[in-house]
């Protein structure tokens, strides 16, 4: 019976693992690419209000009003920082922004 070295088994396992990883990442990328056009960009705490408006093709004024802030297109503070300044949790601001986006007509 031919002797199989442990090193060869390790290389075979690593080879199978690499092929599996290539398929996994390739499949995930293609799935995301297909969904990209259908799904809206989720709002994150690092985004500023004008950034959210740009990503959702919405009027920034509506979003500023939704979180009770004066309309200032140059206000580039991340949502996380606005939340700190206003003493509210970021999740609450994100919820208010999402509600406003759901109601708002798309920007012309």
């Amino acid at each position, binding site marked *: 019976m031919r002797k199989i070295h442990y090193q060869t088994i390790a290389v075979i396992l690593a080879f199978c693992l690499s092929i599996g*990883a290539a398929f996994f990442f390739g499949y995930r990328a293609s799935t995301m690419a297909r969904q990209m056009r259908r799904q809206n960009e989720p709002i994150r705490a690092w985004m500023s209000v004008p950034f959210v408006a740009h990503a959702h093709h919405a009027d920034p004024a509506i979003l500023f009003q939704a979180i009770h802030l004066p309309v200032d297109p140059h206000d580039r503070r991340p949502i996380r920082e606005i939340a700190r300044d206003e003493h509210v949790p970021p999740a609450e601001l994100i919820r208010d922004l999402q509600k406003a986006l759901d109601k708002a007509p798309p920007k012309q």
Partner: protein
Amino acid sequence: MSDQVLAALAHYGAPALFAIVAIAAVGIPLPVTLLLIVTGSLAAQRVMNVGVAIGVSSAGSVLGDQIGYAIGRWGGSALQSRFIRMLGSPERLRRIDDKAKAWGGAGVFFSRWLVTPLGPWINLASGAARYSWIRFTVWDVLGETLGCALYIALGMVFSDRVQAVGAILGDLSWALVAVIAAVLLGRMLFRRKSADAT
């Protein structure tokens, strides 16, 4: 981590961009692809100048790569011996040294923008294998400038889909690394089989 890095970019702009890409190029895992795509989106929104963004991100990346190269080259005998232990023998280091000289330029160039997860390792390996510093720097600057320009341009084109594009590019990059690993391992297995047959 991703949130803090992107919030820093949104708040501090170019200085944060420079610092983050430099730290990431040394080997600290930070979401640089997404960062560059968001930078592109900010450029599309006219918050950041596109030329400044490409210049600053390339300069930061090159600085980080140079630190990685220097650690590999002048990191002292302890680092060298650890690297040799990792490879198995001094003979292997000599073989890598020869390969680095033959493939060094292409390896450095493509790991800057195509197979980015390998970038920090290539920096260390190039330094440890004493690959020419001038050649390393030339390929590094070319690769980083192309990479930063490419990702920032993608961010400008898909400025309203930055997270999705970042995730897709990240996955594609890992898929490519896995394909390269599979090809190298397959070649190794084929050689072993041929050696066993003779």
